């Protein structure tokens, strides 16, 4: 990935009382020379990679369970993606699905930080051959 430019997407968990506006103000108040764009789910932050990482660390420190982040390939306002210029937004379904799952992940992170033990997922077992034969014969 390019070290020159990094665009990051910050998404607020639906369980949080934090608003995109508050998040944007917090980033602006850091006084760093990064572009910040408020979105419906949180905000986009763009700038040199080092600067964006500093902002990410500050946001994670202040909102450890409420704000999630990933890099975004396209720069802010890129005409190929920007809604104002009728760009396509193929990542929308993915973001919507992840937004819905964030409260669960938030809960998981809190439990993990509290040192709570988790219950391991049961391994899927192969169907015994005899049972498989019975199923095949039943539907004959």
């Amino acid at each position, binding site marked *: *990935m*390019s070290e*020159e*430019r990094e665009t990051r*997407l910050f*998404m607020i968990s639906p369980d949080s009382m934090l608003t995109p506006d508050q998040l944007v103000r917090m980033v602006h108040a850091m006084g760093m020379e990064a572009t910040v764009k408020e979105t419906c789910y949180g905000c986009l932050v763009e700038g040199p990679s080092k600067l964006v990482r500093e902002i990410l660390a500050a946001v*994670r420190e202040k909102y450890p369970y409420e704000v*999630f*982040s*990933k*890099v*975004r*390939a*396209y*720069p802010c306002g*890129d005409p*190929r993606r920007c809604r104002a210029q009728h760009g*396509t937004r193929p*990542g929308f*379904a*993915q*973001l*919507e*699905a*992840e937004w819905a*799952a*964030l409260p*669960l*992940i938030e*809960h*998981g*992170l809190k*439990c*993990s930080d509290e040192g*709570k*033990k*988790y*219950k*391991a*997922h049961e391994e899927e077992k192969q169907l015994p051959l005899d049972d498989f034969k019975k199923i095949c014969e039943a539907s004959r």
Partner: protein
Amino acid sequence: MKVFIDPPNSMILYDLVERFGHEPLSAMAAIQNKIDNIEVDMPPMNVTLDDVIRGLKYAGVEVPSGIRGRLAMWGPLIEQADAAVIMIDAPFSFGCVGCERSNEMVKYLIKRRGIPTVTVYYPKNEEEAETVVGQVKEFLEGLK
């Protein structure tokens, strides 16, 4: 360490890998390389001749072009990876919905590399979410 995430565009996995101190390898990084270095109209939908050749390394010519196109982008990431985190049983809109065969191929390529891998199930309730985060954290902290 470089950790490949599957689905490669997942924010949850990207965030978890980064949070627990590793570098996630994602589709976003591969697409950004195209955006920054090659002037094409609509990455990742546009492919170059190089992409087609690269895709052939991971899937035969008889494989549908959509799968080859995806593997041209994700294959090099899998080759760089030191470990992988895979999430399965997710709703259809979670991750790349192009073709289940490309997802199968990705899992096969990861398995063939023989790198440390953790497979987690998409959480449907709080207890399962504890398991997902716990498993991912334990796996990532155990990587040296």
